[in-house]
């Protein structure tokens, strides 16, 4: 007996955002970090902060932490992204 059965997946790709234009250089730029607030983010972002400033000439690093590490970033953090040239979002498990 032949079965004709249906695909259980969405089949359609989920909506995705567009990548921002790539920066030619990080020199003199402001980079924002969005941390999920877990313990493991502290060392990672501290190291990245140092690398960006010392090796790539980043002018300023702005650190922001989500109020709920399992939820999207708070609206006020998302709004602030506009004032940064680049953003790094990281989890800390």
């Amino acid at each position: 007996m032949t079965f004709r059965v249906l695909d259980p997946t969405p089949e359609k790709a989920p909506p995705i955002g567009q990548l921002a234009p790539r920066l030619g250089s990080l020199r003199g730029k402001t980079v924002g970090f969005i941390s999920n607030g877990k313990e493991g983010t502290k060392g990672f972002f501290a190291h990245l902060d140092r690398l960006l400033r010392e090796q790539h000439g980043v002018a300023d690093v702005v650190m922001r932490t989500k109020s709920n590490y399992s939820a999207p970033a708070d609206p006020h953090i998302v709004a602030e992204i506009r004032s940064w040239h680049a953003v790094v979002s990281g989890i800390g498990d």
Partner: protein
Amino acid sequence: MPLDSRTYEAADIAAVQELYHANGWTDGLPIVPPTAEAVQACLDWAMMPADQLIGVEPVRGLAVTAEKLAINAVMAGCLPMHFPVVATAWTAMMQPEFLMHGATASTGGCAVLVVLNGPIRLELGASGGFNALGNSDRATAVIGRALRLCLINLMDVRPGAIDRSTLGHPGKFSFCLAEDEEDTTWLSLAETRGIPKEASAVTVMAAGAPRQIMNEWTTKPEEILETFAAEMRANLRHYSIHPGNYALIIPKQLREHLQAAGWSKADIASFIHERARIHRREWAEVGKGAVVRDRGDSVYPAMESPDQLLVVAAGGPAGGFGAVIPPWLGHKSHAVTVPIGACIDCEPPKQ
């Protein structure tokens, strides 16, 4: 309207199983072949067009239609009469306060606890009696499984993909129970959460594994409930200090003592709220002294308020066994109750 999903041909039932397993579309157990006829029967029973939007997952913007939900429900073993419960539970899970993405992706490894209330329990043969948290009956088994298959196939909540659980727990196969409303004097869980008794309802909670307790040596409500509170304190010490929804499953043998003494669910919640709390310094006793810091005297209740306790009457008629079902991670996800057959996002009817 015709179904829109891609169709596959399989030579026999074994080939169907291999098709679905090979594509990662199962939970590891065999599935029921989701034929167009079986899926359409679910949609017809619920009076839903195939393209009805059940909801959009709030974090990743993934839209879920009735057709896709029904395919997964059939795969789980659902009959058409089970499908409205699956659709309602899914609607509840997609409410922002449930935080589906966080709860299902977390390393914490929680499952979705589903509690059924109201007349539909009897229509479906959903049992809140013997083995209430296990394989008690067909309806709760397949409804709980359907939600897991929906998560796997519609949200990509596969182990190692979106599902980052370190351990998970057996409730991730199916974690559904019906409240024993006939054998108690208490209000049902749904009633305590504002749903009329005549309505059927589904409550979902992002839940850890059940922690079983036993106390068959007292009839005093305070002593019975102290055992539950102690288990909650253990959870606060050993797992997470964050307050949130806890569920208490109270079987007939224990609730008869509570009911005879005139204790309502609200009384139980007030008592538990007072007793289920620890000092932060207690973490030092269980190997977590590193995070006590200078806040050792701070008090951490298991719940922010008594109404975060979900008290459920369920279990076989004999045995002083109860269960504490802890939250995934405090109040980051809130339990959601939705009546079956109600539309919570609909436009009001035009005059």
